[in-house]
């Protein structure tokens, strides 16, 4: 009986699976069908696909358990509240915090705003100075700009050639009226990991609050807020296979870190972030954090393997490729390569069946070279020729191989067309050329 009932379904499924198989498995399909396929996704620093397990945990709260988690008078509110608190616990456990120190926000941008502006404004009567780095995400830099307009002084620390800050620079930038140091854990463009523990130790010895933007680091590298002496930490949902539109901020309770809220309202989240917590999104973020904790080792091993495969294959086939950022202290899933004598935008256009980006998604609309690459001292021409490859949980060997193949092919093709490349082959030093304007 079982065989009779199951067999047709299995045949159907196998048929379906073949029909819908991804680009890497499709050999001799017609052009028409191929054009309908979507490009491969190799831009996981911009956003990640949601894990099916995360969606599965969210679904009941999107349809069945719709109560307001802040309603205290009925069961609808209670069940949503307990789900929200469970999510808070899951997030706290991933970073070694207490659940009461986690505040839900709309994403890492909001978390960074709360941290930078909130701390600065709360302690403004005594402390008027903030330290950050030149390679921070735009939302931290822009918050600092806004504070400068309010009369605060901001030090933008330079970074070394490898993208990591010099701790001596940090030491010497500290002033008696410094209230906050904000340094990101993993850079979103070049993937370098800053020495978070060392920075935390320096800050705590000077009694300065330390905020780290860990949107790209949480769930990917081990982080512990107590060991690393972090006072505030920003977390994003959609960078860790969770839903978009949700994030969290960790705010230390002991010793207490006080923050002036940006948003006024009903006083939810201990008054730090008013507004109803979106239960399904919070549940999704919690599930994503729990999964990240379980899968961190497995994912990291696999991502390192794939990243190694990508880099070694490209480096072996194409000369004059520069890897931006420190080769050792980095998160392997974010690879930023500069292909000399090739214009990054034209390479991106040529690689239209692979979704890639030349830097952060926020600035991908402009043709300006990335400010992060300029900060690490990359030459203008190399900064224009950079591409960021993102490898995540759902990336496969086939996808990496296809990207590598296409990349090598197009870099070679574009270089053959380039007069600069021809000159380099003839042994002319490009820096010695005097360009004249007509």
């Amino acid at each position, binding site marked *: 009986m079982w065989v009779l009932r199951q067999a047709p379904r*299995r045949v159907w*499924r*196998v048929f*379906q*699976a073949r029909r*819908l*198989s*991804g*680009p*890497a*498995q499709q050999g001799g399909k017609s052009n*028409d*069908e191929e054009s*309908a396929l*979507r490009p491969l*996704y190799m831009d996981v620093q911009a956003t990640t*696909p949601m894990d*099916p*397990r995360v*969606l*599965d945990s969210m*679904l009941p709260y999107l349809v069945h358990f719709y109560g307001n988690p802040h309603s205290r008078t009925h069961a609808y509110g209670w069940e949503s509240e307990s789900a929200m608190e469970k999510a808070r616990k899951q997030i706290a456990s991933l970073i070694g915090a207490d659940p009461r120190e986690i505040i839900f926000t709309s994403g890492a941008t909001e978390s960074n705003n709360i941290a930078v502006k909130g701390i600065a404004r709360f302690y403004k009567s005594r402390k008027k100075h903030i330290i950050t780095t030149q390679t921070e995400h735009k939302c931290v830099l822009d918050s600092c700009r806004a504070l400068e307009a309010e009369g605060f002084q901001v030090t933008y620390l330079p970074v070394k050639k490898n993208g990591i800050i010099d701790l001596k620079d940090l030491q010497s930038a500290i002033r008696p009226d410094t209230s906050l140091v904000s340094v990101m854990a993993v850079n979103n463009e070049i993937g370098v990991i800053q020495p978070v523990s060392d920075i935390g130790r320096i800050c705590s010895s000077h009694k300065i609050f330390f905020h780290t933007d860990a949107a790209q680091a949480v769930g990917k590298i081990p982080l512990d807020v107590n060991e690393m002496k972090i006072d505030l930490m920003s977390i994003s949902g959609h960078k860790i296979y969770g839903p978009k539109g949700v994030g969290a901020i960790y705010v230390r309770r002991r010793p207490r870190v006080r923050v002036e809220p940006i948003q006024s309202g009903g006083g939810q989240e201990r008054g730090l972030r008013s507004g109803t917590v979106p239960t399904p999104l919070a549940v999704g973020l919690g599930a994503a954090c729990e999964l990240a904790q379980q899968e961190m080792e*497995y994912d990291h091993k696999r991502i390192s393997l794939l990243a190694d495969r990508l880099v070694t294959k490209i480096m072996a086939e194409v000369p004059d490729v520069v890897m931006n950022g420190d080769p050792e202290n980095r998160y392997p899933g974010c690879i930023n390569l500069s292909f000399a004598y090739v214009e990054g935008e034209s390479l991106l256009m040529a690689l239209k069946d692979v979704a890639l980006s030349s830097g952060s998604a926020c600035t991908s609309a402009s043709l300006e070279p990335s400010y992060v690459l300029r900060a690490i001292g990359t030459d203008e021409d190399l900064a224009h020729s950079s591409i960021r490859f993102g490898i995540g*949980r*759902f*990336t*496969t060997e086939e996808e990496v191989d296809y990207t590598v193949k296409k990349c090598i092919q197009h870099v070679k093709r574009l270089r053959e067309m380039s007069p600069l490349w021809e000159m380099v082959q003839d042994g002319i030093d490009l820096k010695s050329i005097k360009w004249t304007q007509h």
Partner: protein
Amino acid sequence: MAAARRTQALRLYRALLRESQAFASYGYRTYAIRRIKDAFRENKNISDSTEIETLLNKAKTNLEIIRRQVTCSLPIEYLHRSCKSWNYTIWSNCLKVSLIPMGSVP
């Protein structure tokens, strides 16, 4: 007891792989299959019975998740197919959405 557990584990393993085949999205499908194979391979030498019990329960939960996610991940993927394919029309009719440009309607 041990033999019964072995059969149960193998049955779950096969069921998990079979259900994962139906993920419409290439990334999810390959990940699920790879993860299941790796997890079972990693845990094949575990002899502690309570630990085996927890792992089997986890596998059961994951099987249910995959079953649910496979069914709800289908229609979206269908919409991304070429306009010419038959299932596109069927699904767009089902969802009462017409993505055909106005000018092309005879």
